[in-house]
């Protein structure tokens, strides 16, 4: 089965939908900042383009999100969190080869914002893991030319 291309509009929509379906999401989001931006840094060798997305939580769910045309839009949006990493690290996280909390603490995944709050919610990681498992993902470096 062919999956949805990683970090494409369709992929983000599918992941957000799956995350929003989780009954534990309101508990996980409670007390966190309202918005977040995620940056996938380009890796031309892996044919992975740069992607920047922004999302806002309200009422215990991801209420809105959008792909950013320009990564610099984040400067204007000033989200509570900015999480940034190169493509291969995101792929490692998606495939459960890398723990995102440890990677953030080691500085491999760069987090701007209240890292303390995120570490305290590390045990809610299963929400994202389950959502990611629900979306068949196609990685650009695994697509045959």
């Amino acid at each position: 089965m062919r999956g949805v291309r990683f970090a494409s509009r369709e992929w983000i929509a599918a992941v957000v939908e799956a995350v929003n379906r989780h009954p534990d999401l309101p508990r996980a989001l409670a007390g966190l900042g309202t918005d977040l931006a995620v940056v996938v840094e380009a890796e031309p060798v892996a044919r992975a383009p740069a992607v920047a997305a922004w999302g806002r939580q309200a009422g215990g769910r991801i209420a809105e999100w959008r792909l950013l045309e320009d990564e610099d839009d984040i400067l204007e949006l000033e989200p509570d969190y900015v999480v940034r990493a190169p493509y291969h690290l995101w792929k490692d996280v998606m495939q459960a080869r890398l723990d995102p909390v440890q990677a953030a603490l080691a500085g491999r995944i760069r987090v701007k914002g209240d890292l303390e709050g995120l570490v305290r919610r590390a045990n809610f990681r299963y929400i994202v893991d389950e959502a990611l498992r629900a979306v068949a993902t196609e990685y650009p470096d695994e697509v045959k030319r």
Partner: protein
Amino acid sequence: MTDEKKGKGIADLLVEQGMRFATQAAKTVIDDRRGQEAVATAVGLAQKGMKRLEGVQEQVLHAIGLPSKSDYDDVAKQMARLKRKMRDLKKQVDAAADAKGARPSPAPPAGPSAEDDDAGEQGDAG
């Protein structure tokens, strides 16, 4: 050259081993509820400390008439806003041109000279 490569290899191996041990240790700590709390508190304290340091740094820099990090951040934010506004304006101009049908068609591929301009669209060769 070979020695250098060998040296790098050993250094890489050491870093890799170190990372493995550190990751294992971090995993053990974070997997435990109390460990997670302790790490979170330590991270919070470190972030608060950094913020305080930045505040002092900003005061010192301002006192001697130099811009601080927050000043640079403000400029970057204004630049980002300008960039976004220009992009929005360009979209509006393009949409207006499209509506009027006055938008020039995309430039033809490089190669043919101006004499070929009247030739119209060219299909695939062959």
